[in-house]
């Protein structure tokens, strides 16, 4: 019983990371029908910046806030410089190459300036594990699924109840019509990438006290989160969070009851099988195109 609870709790934390990073893909996709493929490195950037700012003497919360703000600006900059010029029509794919390339640059630059080794982000919530029913967890870890669910509700409220949110939804429904209605589509895209980066950075900051911040921490998380977003159907925030958290829990049970080495193989195979059965994703809907 204890081990089942342990796998569930650690899976919940891991799933929270996937969900938060995948939410970023959802936001970017909704606004531009493109995404920053280096979003995993934004998750890393948030963690690394928070460590550096705290080391420079900032209190944890202030350092985290600055790290999120800088990451959001980086996300917006990536949209302006590396996505927008290469996303000029529906079939454009140049943004894939440019965002992947900037991810490599970001990781290399971080290694050069920050160093290759991990550093910890001190947090009072990650000092001692709490034990429950034969399992253990850090309160810090539980912040991740809570943050994912919180961000999901906040996003829904933002999309429904604010002018900017409604404008973003309008752009996601039909970019051209939204533009004709007077919505500044480019500005919406800029905000969306900034918001996505802020949420990605938040995930990195929340997990850094438990796993250490290293320049290479983002690549695989980014890939898996993109897979999560696709499997969920990418256009459904609730679906993205549900699939993200579930995928984290499934991975832990695979590790526990099948094999650690088989985790990624089985996990990615599951993703492929789900997509074969549900080409639009588990929570996606088929897009109707008038001809």
């Amino acid at each position, binding site marked *: 019983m204890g081990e089942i609870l342990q796998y569930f709790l650690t899976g919940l934390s891991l799933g929270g990371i996937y969900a938060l990073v995948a939410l970023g893909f959802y936001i970017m996709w909704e606004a531009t029908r493109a995404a920053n493929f280096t979003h995993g490195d934004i998750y890393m950037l948030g963690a690394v910046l928070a460590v550096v700012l705290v080391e420079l003497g900032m209190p944890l919360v202030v350092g985290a806030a600055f790290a999120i703000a800088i990451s959001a600006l980086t996300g917006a900059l990536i949209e302006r410089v590396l996505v927008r010029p290469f996303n000029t029509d529906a079939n454009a794919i140049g943004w894939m190459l440019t965002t992947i390339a900037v991810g490599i640059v970001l990781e290399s630059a971080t290694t050069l300036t920050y160093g290759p080794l991990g550093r910890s982000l001190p947090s009072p919530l990650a000092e001692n594990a709490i034990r429950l029913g034969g399992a*253990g967890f850090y309160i810090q870890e539980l912040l991740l699924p809570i943050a994912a669910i919180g961000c999901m509700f906040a996003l829904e409220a933002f999309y429904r109840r604010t002018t900017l949110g409604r404008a973003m939804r309008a752009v996601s429904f039909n970019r051209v019509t939204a533009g004709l209605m007077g919505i500044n589509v480019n500005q919406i895209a800029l905000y969306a990438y900034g918001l996505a980066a802020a949420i990605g950075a938040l995930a990195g900051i929340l997990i850094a006290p438990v796993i250490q911040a290293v320049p290479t921490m983002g690549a695989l998380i980014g890939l898996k989160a993109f897979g999560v977003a696709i499997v969920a159907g990418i256009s459904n925030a609730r679906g993205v969070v549900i699939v993200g958290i579930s995928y984290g829990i499934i991975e832990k049970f695979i590790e526990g009851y099948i094999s650690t080495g088989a985790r990624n193989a089985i996990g990615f195979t599951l993703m492929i099988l789900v997509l074969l059965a549900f080409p639009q994703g588990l929570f996606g809907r088929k897009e109707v195109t008038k001809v």
Partner: protein
Amino acid sequence: MFRNLSRLTPKALLALSVSTVALAMSMTAAHAQKAEPCIAGSWELSGALAHTGLAIRMGIETAVDEINEAGGVLGKKLRVVALDDQGEPARAVDNARRIAEKENCIVMIGGFRTPNALAIRPVLTEMGQPWMGVISAGTRVTEWETGKNEWMFRTSMKDRWVTPFLLDQALERSKTKKVGFLYEATGWGQGAVPDLEAAAKAKGVTIVGKETFNIADTDMSAQLIRLRDAGADTLVLYVVDREANAILRSMERLNYRPTMVSAWGISAQLGQTAGKLTDGILVAGTYAWTGTLEPRAQKAWERMQKKFNLKHPGELVLPSGIANAYDAVYIIAEGIKLAGDFDKKKFRDAMYKVKYEGIIAKYDPAFEPKFDRHDSIIPTHYKLLAFHNGNLMRVEQTPYAMKK
């Protein structure tokens, strides 16, 4: 003259051609043996392993500076040529060719990664280039399958000898004699499995659980639950810092606290990042720069401290690797002196005659012309280090030494 040549019979002409080519080749070969007074390295100077390249540079440059201040070797000052391979075998091969041909250095010093050392074996043989490893511990770096290693020497640990050492330490500390093995799923970690199994068989014990993990894994609960349920009270680890931190966090979650004896993938930096969780982890190594040092090592540390702007020995993230590099340079210098010339072949032959007392050990002799003795550091030189209060120290300086 050409008219006379035309009068030669075909056989005579062939004999003349062969002898001319042979003369030219022997002259070229003789020229190639003459080397420059430089020590060249293909190291990980950038990228994710940049700290390892820096560690090697620290040990080598400190020793070279000392030697040059004392007048150099055979009246010549030694130079250090540092090339970056970013941990990639293909770049290491390119660098090895450049070092052997263009730089023509008397010796090449290897970097951190065993795959790089393995990749350059044919190049070193082809070019007749002596090589000295100071970190990469893969058994096959010096013990070639063909048994024909002529040019590769090492002043570092060797995996085939490390695993029995780790198992000895683990069994000595295990109350139940139930030892588990947790290792990374890389060539390094997986390569240790047969070595550990052989060592366990030789001692008549069974490893109660063998668990692996992937690079960048952040939670090891599943592996540790299985090891705990198998009754392992002591673990042998093949792990590096980042995953070691994940192991410690998972142990804290599970309240599972076995004794841990690790190969030297764990660096001193783990003590700073994982803090009190590291207390009591034992690490195999060759040297620790903490505590009271012998006068010679103290001088070397002070020089290093000044040159590389260090505040505390804890900043030496690879203490054993730095000491290996330091001793290796002195062994090389002794080899050159015994060779009497900057000649690669004479130098290679002289390495078997070197007897030298370094900061790690008394090398008597450093190497022998035998299959398994191209390693100057032998198991009796291995030391056990331990984390205590966030510092990696000699075990004798901590509460974790075995009471005799």
